[in-house]
């Protein structure tokens, strides 16, 4: 069959069928490809959409990226209900079935090692945000009035200085808080990964993201982990903690999280 092979994940063989009718990436339903006792979950996708050149363009198209990411996630989610998959990066594509089998053969030892590592584990995401500090105002006329304009050059500098100080204080506290929180959660979890801080233009979140971390936790310990985050979050003014999950262990797939691309 012509077309390329899009691989979502690798896993141990599983019995139950995937939960629902999955449309898959590019509307192509996922199928199992078993080789050397390992299962690659695969969709056949059109070449014009997934060659390296096409991908480069498509990855910059937010609409395409969104649709593909969501479809990919749906498949991973369905797999997580029946097994502990090793999720691959978006757009991990091979030329044909034989290409997928070669990959499995070449990396069998590593795949098994990571699969063992991830078996029965899930990922939780924790983000810390610094909220915009309140406008420093030496206007004593009370709440609700916008701060008056500076009345002189020196006044302007003074206000700017006060704003900077207030801002630095918040950042200092946020930084210390994040370090503490990360240390505590890392001690409880089996492993952790840091992601780059998120861009609020894309996330639409208020405030600035200062910590964006993922923690690997055995499924059975999830409830305790959530309680721990809840306890540690402490109501620190100007700081917000967000928890997401449980995710499949996307961030802990090791070398399989490296750059994808079309492999022959």
């Amino acid at each position, binding site marked *: 069959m012509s077309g390329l092979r899009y691989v979502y994940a690798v896993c141990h063989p599983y019995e139950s069928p995937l939960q629902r009718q999955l449309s898959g990436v590019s509307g192509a339903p996922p199928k199992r490809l078993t080789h050397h006792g390992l299962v690659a979950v695969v969709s056949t996708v059109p070449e014009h959409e997934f060659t390296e050149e096409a991908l480069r363009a498509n990855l910059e198209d937010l609409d395409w990226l969104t649709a593909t990411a969501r479809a990919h996630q749906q498949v991973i989610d369905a797999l997580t209900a029946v097994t502990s998959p090793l999720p691959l990066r978006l757009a991990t594509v091979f030329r044909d079935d034989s290409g997928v089998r070669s990959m499995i053969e070449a990396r069998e030892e590593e795949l098994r090692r990571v699969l063992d590592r991830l078996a029965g584990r899930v990922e939780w995401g924790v983000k810390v945000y610094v909220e915009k500090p309140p406008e420093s105002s030496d206007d004593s006329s009370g709440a609700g009035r916008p701060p008056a304009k500076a009345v002189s*050059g020196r006044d302007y500098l003074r206000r700017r200085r006060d704003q900077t100080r207030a801002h630095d204080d918040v950042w200092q506290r946020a930084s210390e808080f994040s370090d503490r929180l990360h240390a505590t959660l890392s001690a409880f979890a089996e492993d952790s990964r840091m992601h780059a801080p998120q*861009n609020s233009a894309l996330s639409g979140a208020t405030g600035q993201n200062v910590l964006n971390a993922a923690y690997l936790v055995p499924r059975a310990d999830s409830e305790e982990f959530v309680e721990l985050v809840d306890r540690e979050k402490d109501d620190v003014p100007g700081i917000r903690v967000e928890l997401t999950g449980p995710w499949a262990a996307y961030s802990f797939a090791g070398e399989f999280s490296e750059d994808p691309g079309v492999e022959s």
Partner: protein
Amino acid sequence: MTERRNRLDLEPDTVERDLVKLVLTVVELLRQLMERQAVRRFDEGGLSEEQEERIGLTLMLLEDRMAELRDRYGLRPEDLNLDLGPLGPLLPRE
């Protein structure tokens, strides 16, 4: 055919607006750098009262002027920024 975002738009007034946005972003960078240095000098007490007043007024007027220019082109403060990829945003996002 679905329209891709960020498609090159050849309307003249958008071209001008985008150029202005780029230029004002650079000006805003300079303004913030100057202001930051001025506030630091002010805080350290390294300026005479006269200097403080002069510099403060200049910065205040500069801020007003920037606001005027932004308004003229319908730009919000957060529109003046550049994403430098791995270097993060050019200007702080607060």
